[in-house]
């Protein structure tokens, strides 16, 4: 099964990324990968956070759901790790 990915729908404004990543950094919980882009005409953003299996994950999902700008949280296991490989974008450009 692919690694866990946290799928987030958030309000798109400055500060949202800090609120989300802050929850991880202050728990010394590493984010393996972040994919983020605007949706809904830029009013919202969709974030995919690649994480490792960890017993603290359910707690983190609860904390994410509490954030003011988070609209929806879901844990999924169907996104391949390669989606987070930055080199694939660079290779395509070259």
């Amino acid at each position, binding site marked *: 099964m692919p690694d866990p990915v946290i799928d987030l729908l958030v309000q798109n404004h400055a*500060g949202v990324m*800090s609120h989300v990543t802050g929850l991880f950094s*202050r728990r010394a919980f590493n984010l393996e990968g972040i994919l983020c882009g605007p949706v809904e005409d830029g009013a919202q953003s969709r974030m995919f956070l690649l994480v490792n299996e960890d017993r603290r994950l*359910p707690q983190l999902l*609860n*904390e994410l759901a*509490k*954030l*003011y700008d988070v609209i929806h949280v879901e844990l999924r296991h169907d996104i391949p790790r390669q989606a987070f490989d930055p080199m694939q974008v660079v290779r395509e450009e070259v």
Partner: protein
Amino acid sequence: MKRNGAEIIVEILERQGVRTVAGIPGGANLPLYDALRDSSIHHVLARHEQGGAFMAQGIARVTRRAGVCLGTSGPGATNLLTAIADAKLDSIPLVIITGQVPLAMIGTDAFQEVDTYGLTLPITKHNFLARRPDELLHILPEAFRLAESGRPGPVVVDVPKDVQTGECEFDAWPEPWSNSAPAPCNPSEIDALACMIHDAKRPVLYIGGGILAAGCEAELAQLARRNSIPVICTLMGLGVFPADDPLYLGLLGMHGSRATNLALEEADLLIALGVRFDDRATGKVAAFCPQAKVAHIDIDASEIGKIRPADLSIMGDVGQALRQLLPLMDAPPRDTWRSRIAQIQIDFPPAQPDSDHPLHPIRLLREAARLLPHDTIITTDVGQHQMWTAQIYPFRHPRTWLTSGGLGTMGFGFPAAIGAALARPDRTVLCVTGDGSFLMNNQELATLAELGLNVKILLMNNGHLGLVRQQQELFYGERYHATRFEARTDYAALARCFGVKGVTLDPLEDPAEALARIFAQPGPCLIEAPIPENANVYPMVPPGAANRDTIGGTVHA
């Protein structure tokens, strides 16, 4: 209509029913102070932003409404941080409005510029950086809603100076935020809880600050008494259930009584209401209530199962849950459990003074409790005096006990006492403090002198950072270091310098008469009590140990 940002802030505060704000002006919030000059809101000029924010906390803790404080950019904002973090950990509603450098200067290392948004991000329930004056019409009511609803907490609104001066046109004022009735709890979960309580032979109620936030002290007392369930309090939960009730077992955890920790050891059901299984309360988690099933009710889903998995969890307002639960409950007498609880209380009585010193803190506190009205509001700082007060003082009413629980902030008690007295001028307020803690916000003596409020300060002076010294004695082989104050400070004279009455108790005399005389006079007074230097707080569970592994508590009984 047309208003500038500062006028919008002030008018929304008024419409929200805010009567008192505390703070300090500076360059970046001058437009706000200019607008405040024409307002009916009482502004209390603190002498340090942290003092102002703790005054706002004092107001919030006694009223259950958001306290408001103001600070300027840069050092104004950084000085507020400790009190904001304190409010976050104790779930206290605060709205903090900070000035910021003008928008165009943000990010240029301008004079008194600091990233208030970034600094307050991990210590607030939420924070806002206003970018346009019209945004304030949305942000401010939201700030009050967020601060007071659900699990309360602090909300920062950072307002650049040009957003305060900038004008905008709008048609109508936003509706002030007001709390609506809590959502009903899932009836099948309430049924399951009723069955669990009915089946339990040895249930205990483990209650905390969530009961105060929900304002459901009466429902809790009804559940405890009708079902003969003993009540155990966290540090935040003191005052929720009257200390003179036979079902009251008091504080649990690190400095809880042996009776309390033993009752938890024997319990078969832990009914956890508005608590978060804090490490100072549970001790070693694996050994906490080893025989008990856990039913956990909390408004914050992220608390349930965080530390201890619950056998039954209900996510919702604890008052709402109790109101749904009570009609389903029978009233079992639980004679065996009640007599066991009574026996434990006889076997392990409350802490006693460990010396004949007339000013032993336990004697002082018993005397204060005897002399002061039942509804006196007690605030404390952090340290030995705080733990003695939590153990000894017979709290009978909710919101008469204000203490820094989660963050454990020395310097909390005195400005919080000023805030409490501002909110409840009809009451006596007693700040119990230590010499270490008091110096961390003593500048507010100037504020108290101006206000003339009925705040008494009982300063227990042992010339040490006593609780740290105690840990060096017990856990560091008496290798004392940096816990003794070499300089002897005359605290009564310090108070008098600020224009506040100050007296020193005679260490050789029974303090009853002096205390009676001082408490009988309205107005502020600092009472310095030279307490024995080496008195320790017992019982004590060593950090990281199980609650059953208590030091002291019987030897001194």
